């Protein structure tokens, strides 16, 4: 169960206080009517869904009620950073400053007991 640092409350809080809200940084097209059906469908439904570093939006629902962004590894579940709405991530899938995910890498799907 996640322990999430809320950038607005300035402390780690239990996952149960938060709701995940899907992929971060999806902007609504400025001129929806200028979009084709395909572009509009892409905006509504099509997602990166990466296996690895992922930027997602959460809301501190039982707390300050603020939305914010989380960079999280979707296999190790390690949270690499959280940042406020409107800010950009400092860690991305390709970035150099990505911490070594030693245990993330070791956590390939193993054999289960």
């Amino acid at each position: 169960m996640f322990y999430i640092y809320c950038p607005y409350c300035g402390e780690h809080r239990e996952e149960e206080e938060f709701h995940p809200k899907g992929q971060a940084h999806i902007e609504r097209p400025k001129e929806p009517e200028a979009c084709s059906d395909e572009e509009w469908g892409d905006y509504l439904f099509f997602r990166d869904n990466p296996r690895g570093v992922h930027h997602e939006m959460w809301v501190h629902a039982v707390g300050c009620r603020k939305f914010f962004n989380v960079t999280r590894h979707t296999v190790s579940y390690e949270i690499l950073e959280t940042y406020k709405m409107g800010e950009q991530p400092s860690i991305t899938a390709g970035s150099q400053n990505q911490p070594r995910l030693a245990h993330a890498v070791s956590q390939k799907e193993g054999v289960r007991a």
Partner: protein
Amino acid sequence: MSQSKQQMYRLNTGGRIDRSHTLSFTFNGERYQGHPGDTLASALLANGVDIVNRSFKYSRPRGIVAAGAEEPNAIVQLGSTEAAQVPNVRATQQALYDGLTASSTNGWPNVQRDLMGLIGKLSGQFMPPGFYYKTFMAPASMWLTYEKYIRMAAGLGCSPMEVDPDSYDHLHQHCDVLVVGAGAAGLAAALAAARSGARVIVADEQEEMGGSLLDSRETLDGKPADQWVARVLAELAGCENVTLLSRTTANGYHDHNFVTLHERRTEHLGETAPVVHGHRQVRSRMHRVRVGQVILTTGAHERPLVYAGNDVPGNLLAGAVSTYIRRYGVAPGRKLVLSTSNDYGYRAALDWNEAGCEVVAVVDAREAPAGDWVDATRAQGIKIITGSAVIEAKGSNRVTAARVAKIDIEAFKVSGPVQELACDTIASSGGYSPVIHLASHTGARPTWRDDILGFVPGLVKGVQACGGANGCYALCDVLAEGVEAGIKAAAAMGHAAQTVSLPSAEQLQQGPAVALFQVPHEKPTLRGPKQLVDLQNDVTAAGIELATREGFESIEHIKRYTAMGFGTDQGKLGNINGMAIAARCLGRSIPEVGTTVFRPNYTPVTFGAIVGRHCRDLFDPERYTALHQWHVERGAEFEDVGQWKRPWYYPQKVNGKAETMHEAVARECLAVREKVGILDASTLGKIDIQGPDAREFLARIYTNKWEKLAVGKCRYGLMCKDDGMVTDDGVTSCLAENHFLMTTTTGGAAAILEWLELWHQTEWPELDVYFSSVTDHWATMTITGPEARKLLAEISDIDLDRDSFKFMDWRSGKVGGVPARVFRISFTGELTFEINVQANYAMHVWQTLFKHGEKYGLTPYGTETMHVLRAEKGFIIVGQETDGSVTPEDLGMQWAIGYDKPYSWIGKRALIRSDTKRENRKQLVGLRPKDPKVVLEEGAQIVLDPKHAIPMPMVGHVTSSYYSPVLDSGFALAVVKGGHQKLGETVYLPMADGQTHEAEIVSTIFYDPKGERQNV
């Protein structure tokens, strides 16, 4: 009831039991005695009970093999009453209490004389792994019959059939350092961490803390090790920053260092929780712990050797033999043969011999064993047979002899003549497997170490393993590792280390162990007698070999095909042996065959403890309005709407008989249409919206226009998601130029507030607007019906004149002396006032209304009547007329769509997608049954050709359907493909009972189509 039996295997001295007190207990109907400090297992052994169970598949007799969590056989049913039954209790982990009642989970008619065992013996060879995949296929129709008989053999214990009398709870814990396991390493780690000032929790699954130090032969500072344990525990108990939890199993390790600890608070006291000082205690408690640093000092489990007949009662783990002697004062037999691959096993022979029982021989697989304990064994005159192993245990209900022979491990064969040694007990040791379960729970893969012949935990952030759990077994090293881990963990949490001086431990000389798992037999594995790997599931070495022959090469396939490790012990004894056997069969190494990753729980956990207090009356919150008491007293039936309890209808007694719902609703409907009714509408979501951009925000979030709504006016609004589908609706009122009050559906309140915040915070932060929930602040009372104005006028100072307080206006003033906002909006089609007052005044205002309303026939009505009345008017309910696939246009609500609003509001773009523009979309219509007596079934499907063969093309379904008292007929709302163009057409509704109803497609408005009544 027979006489209490003597404890004939109880030693006269030794152990941590209290011989001055005697406890009596019942097992399989026989009465026995034991002592405080016993487990059920030690007490059974003391009484010479050999057969404690029958195996699952072959129904073979089984005895106790272990002394802890790894026990696969001694699985019992506990409880003397139906409600107190507990299935599948491990006798090795159940403290004995006076009056304990237990029985075997398998065996018919009983475990001693078991008929199923006969079948197992005869037909065992026809039940290789996976046999059921290969048979029972013909004829196809017979499978359910076959399965019925297969199911008769299912299960171990029995579920209670009555409701649990006990309660359970949770404790949300937070600590810097959690130490799991209070053995040597754990206590050392805890001491180091505690002295640093860190918040420490120590959890240990046993009755007493101390782990292996409680039955150790070794000394600390020259004294018995348990004295050091007592000293450390006393210090820890005195620390304010330390919580000691015994009888507490860390059963799950979850992400970001969240650990669940299951504390069995009263299971050692009796079968139900006791009452202390008049207060009933909770049976067990789940600690949900968020940990800074986890230290796993969970020790190691001994591996048995896999030899033929190793499941006959009397075959035990070597370490368990020592534990029973030294901790419980029980020698589980008279004549011992020990088969070992390592020095640790020798402990059992020494303890056995010192307890005054006969050690027939130690059989060591190594050619030249050497070490302190080996020397001690020799010194005691015990025979050691080297380069050999017990290849087979003889006996059926108890071991009678051990067949011993030279073995060639490399060549996997028996290499010398076999001698038979008479004995009643065979102890075996194949080395130790670190208990790595918790470290594996989040997916970290353990690493195989050839030097210790075991897996050690993989790397997990914030977790250290030390001592046996890390493959470190020498006591002095274990203590040092523990202290180091404790210091490191505390330091990581910002607590500086204090010195901890280690007690001096003996430096034992030990020789290297040999890798021995399955012991060869004279016959090939497939032809020889059964060599059990997983005792609970009757998985044999032959079964594993067969699986590999059939192409099951991944260890996961082998486990699934043979069921190895799927028991309640989850393979704690057998899994590594199984992997080793698979590796041998496949010609691979153990790590090549596959590592093991465990899943919670470490040991099984009572559902009740996981559920905690979230059951019965507290399963889910019941939300009440300020008027709930009144509804209850009035005898309302309630409907669940989200978490709210809303009055559904108010059945009255007529001639001493309670009305049916149909009667009550008809009465309530007519009261509204003819006189005046009142509804508690407090549950509607209410959101206070303030700010200069509030209006612009509404225009973007709602489908309709808001720019011209004047102060004092209200407007109905529809909300879509950006896929164009309706998601909520409600009335929003303009309280001031920059101030609006939005209402939402009862179920949608929280989600809509979050929805508004989502758009504001992520897309439109430039809009100056704030949202606050005021749902609970206001109580809302809807009075509706022709007499509503007269009633309200009696108790309100508001000018209610139809021209000054128009439909869709709101006014403030006093009602019943209480400041109120009154909204002239209508969900019934009648003249309606929605009175909002601060909730603390609600009861007073409601009662005042009734005081004055009697003469007008004021009638309380519930949600059912509300539904009928609104449906007569064609008003939708989001979630009933809509299902996530309905657009505002489908609802025929183009009047609520601002097509030309400047901002492309949420949902607008989606309305011009190819599918949303489609002609034959399902559209909302009214349905009038051809037979007015018919009330169509809600959910009835609509077809155009009822004679069409199945599958019959369906064009829509009934969303709402009621009997209308005012129309004296049934009527319905429905969605029908292209329905807006089909007014007047006939459709058909084929029902499950074979009837087909006919109905005409009509307008959605059945009553007062011009809307005059609400405007009066």
